[in-house]
């Protein structure tokens, strides 16, 4: 069955998980914070996919969004600012049996974590990466992030941000060996869910940028998109994110876009004058570093000792 994991097949499925099985501490985000919608989507996905909680690891950096693991009832790793992705890759490397989710913010991923971002995309290890892009540093109280709109005031740029925002999708698509790049909006729970689900099933690293509301520090940031849905373009393709008609109807522009077309993906990410929603880029043939990184797993102690002794032989006087 679709979604059936090997370990379930081995241990006949006895446990059944409900939503509460994935609910950790009570979320302490601000009222109306977009993070909450995504948390709900991930919990629903876990329930629908019947993920074994102890086989699920949610890794994050530091930021409002990076508190996410605390609100899940799985294993979690709330690490250091900017370092979500190397840690997630490390978890994945020697534990291919775990489901890995990586939670990062626009500052966490595209500022201090930018180097890791490039390389994690390139490694393409199987995991679901959710970039919560609220265009601001939330946790540290409103400093400019690389994605903050130009001229927008913040505490570090009281006369407005100096540069046009970095476009995370454009950068990601440009990284060699990118395999799955999508965008969704926190205020459309159905689309969020469909996107994360598609991302979860991708065999490689799926990168999902979520346009996330931060009512506290960026209260009107996404208003133009919310109030004028025609500023969004829903990307449609059988290989893309497939959603129900009623959900799709909310979007005024529908664009046919083949996500396997790199040039078109670049166009969608950088040039399109509306905001693309859906799967921008997909390369199912991208190389997977995790398949290498698991090398030698499961070797028996006897074999190891034998091999070790053969190594020592090389150094005999």
């Amino acid at each position, binding site marked *: 069955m679709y979604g059936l994991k090997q370990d379930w097949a081995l241990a006949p499925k006895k446990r059944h998980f409900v939503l509460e099985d994935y609910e*950790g*501490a009570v979320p302490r985000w601000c009222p109306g914070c977009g993070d909450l919608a995504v948390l709900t989507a991930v919990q629903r996905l876990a329930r629908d996919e019947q993920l074994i*909680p*102890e*086989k699920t*690891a*949610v*890794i994050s950096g530091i930021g409002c969004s990076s508190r996410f*693991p*605390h609100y*899940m*009832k*799985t*294993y*979690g*790793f*709330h*690490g*250091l600012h900017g*370092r979500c992705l*190397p*840690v*997630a*890759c*490390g*978890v*994945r*490397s*020697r*534990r291919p*049996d*775990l489901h890995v989710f990586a939670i990062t913010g626009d500052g966490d991923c595209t500022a201090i974590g930018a*180097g*890791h971002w*490039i*390389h994690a995309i390139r490694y393409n290890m199987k995991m679901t990466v959710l970039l919560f892009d609220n265009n601001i540093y939330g946790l540290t109280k409103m400093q400019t992030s690389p994605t903050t709109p130009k001229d927008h005031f913040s505490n570090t740029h009281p006369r407005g941000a100096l540069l046009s925002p970095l476009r995370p999708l454009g950068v990601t698509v440009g990284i060699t060996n990118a395999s799955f790049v999508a965008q969704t909006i926190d205020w459309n729970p159905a689309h969020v869910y469909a996107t994360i689900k598609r991302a979860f099933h991708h065999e490689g690293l799926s990168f999902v940028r979520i346009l996330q509301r931060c009512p506290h520090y960026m209260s009107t940031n996404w208003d133009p998109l919310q109030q004028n849905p025609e500023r969004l373009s829903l990307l449609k393709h059988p290989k893309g994110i497939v959603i129900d008609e009623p959900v799709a109807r909310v979007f005024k522009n529908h664009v046919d876009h083949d996500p396997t077309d790199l040039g078109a993906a670049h166009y969608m990410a950088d040039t399109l004058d509306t905001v693309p929603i859906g799967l921008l880029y997909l390369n199912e043939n991208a190389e997977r570093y995790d398949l*290498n*990184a*698991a*090398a*030698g*797993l499961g*070797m028996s*102690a006897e*074999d*190891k*000792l034998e*091999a*070790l*002794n*053969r*190594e*020592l032989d090389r*150094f*005999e*006087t």
Partner: protein
Amino acid sequence: MEDASSARGKTDKKVVSSSKPQSKTTDSGVKVVHQHVVEFVCDSGEGAQTAGQMFGSMSARAGNGVWTVEIIPAEIEPPHRSKAGASGNRIRVGTKEITNAGDEADIVIAFNEQVLYSRIDVGALRKGTIIFLESKWRDDPLETVRAEYLEAFEDFQKRGYDVRETPMEVECLRYIADPRRGKNMWALGMLCAIYCMGLEKAEMEITKKFKRKGQKVIDSNMKLIEAGYAWATKNVPDRFEIPVRPNPQQMVVMNGNTAVALGCMAAGMELCSMYPITPATSASHYLSGAFYRVGGFVHQAEDEIASIGFALGASFAGKTPVTITSGPGLSLMTEMLGLAVMTELPLVIVDVQRGGPSTGLPTKVEQGDLLAALYSAFGDAPKIVMAPATIEECLHFMVTARKLAETFRGPVMVLTDANLATGQTPFPRPVPTEEWLSPPLDQSPWPEGKPSYDWDHETGLSQRPIPGQRGGNYVLTGLAHDNNSKVAYESNTNLYAMRARSRKLHTLRKTLKPPKVYGADTGDLLIVGWGSTKGAIEEAVDRVRADGGKVSSTILRFLSPLEPGLGEIFAKFKKVMTIEINYSDDVDDKGIDAGGRRYAQLAMVLRAATLVDVDCWSDVPGSPLPPKTIENVIRRQLKM
């Protein structure tokens, strides 16, 4: 820079030679010596390293103690016939175990005179050193080369070296067309004759070395060795014998980096997450290949932060990893190191120390990272810090380190240095057992209600849940947390967790024994050292004790926690001083007021810990401290 040499009274001008005669001559004109230092130097690519290593290897197999160390140029392809280009090998051979690279060379084989100057600069030669010097430069077609050669030749004689011009290429040309690819073997043959080594030993070695290349290669090499042997038999009067001591043990020979790598595998670690850096990388090089055979993976990350981050991810997931780096890499790992302490993630960090600060002397030895290892992470970040003192310990300490990391649930730092990393010596072949390996991943259900940091009040220890353990779910966080790993800002919780983490060091300390004292338990002077200086310190202590000096030494293996009993040990000596390869203000420097002296790193730690007025002598020559240097320091202290 005229002032540099007088910067402090550390230059060993008044070197006192060791008092005991080190040799006697047999009837057959063979001088029996207990140890000798031989150097091979040449332009890079001329094969002196191969020949040197083979000589070392033959000696080791014969049952001699051996220490070899490579002479490596700072540049990748330095110009020929230049100081900067000196490449080669120093081989110290002895009757007993050899623990360091020794003092000045007894015999040097040099393929040109310029490379020799780089050895002279670092004090590798003494009056009387026998130099076999390639003589072909005398007749070089280039006038400038001839002039350089003649000038140097005279200079060498003036300096008191025993120079023997040797027609190496001319001799080799009888057998091969390109003597640059063969005269190393000819020279090896010469050494066989001089050191009374039968040619069978050389043949065995050659066969082992070139097995894969086929009999033809073996034969042509043997021909050269035989030729060199024959030539020396006729033309070189000197004969030395370094008696061997039968050693029934099976020995292995390797450098400290390889020992570290083997130690990782012997400890059952399966992930080395690293970023290349000199002089640490060769350990990972070996692992990269060996893991294909022994089961494991080297992750070369995009930088050091990612390398330790990746490692901590794997550790969280239940697999204790290793990362191997050097000073600059360690600096970049500082924040993650703090996280590992705070979240109690097992991890082994090997720091192969090199010359600092900053990029410093990247290929050279220093013991300058101790304070950084102890204190770089802000806040209170108690961690275990160990320093192997021998190449053998480089291997075994890795097994201990992995075990300590898991038992004490946190990072363990292992400090080695460029001296251990590149020195090669034989040691008893280790016998790995299943106990050395990391246990299989625990995936059994987590006991109900048991907190994820179930700190034992007395020991600070706790068992950790591993993803996959049902009911063990927790969220690891670098924020202050309670025993359920829940973020907690209360002052008592913070204190309690801090105390638990600190307590682990005390728990370990209770299991440690006081360090052994080398020499008598009481005396006038106790030298305290750590790491790679052990061999040279003990050799120096032996020499001075042989002259009646009341000096002893002790080597610390644990820097955090410190081994117990130091106060008691120190109390039995009139004076205690550390000898270290790092910077300290010179004690005699007039420009420094007493209370302001900046001490060597271990000295500073010991002063704070024991309140004993621990003095120090340290230097940063970018090379190992020879026993003679240490001997002189001790003699000055003892006014001998």
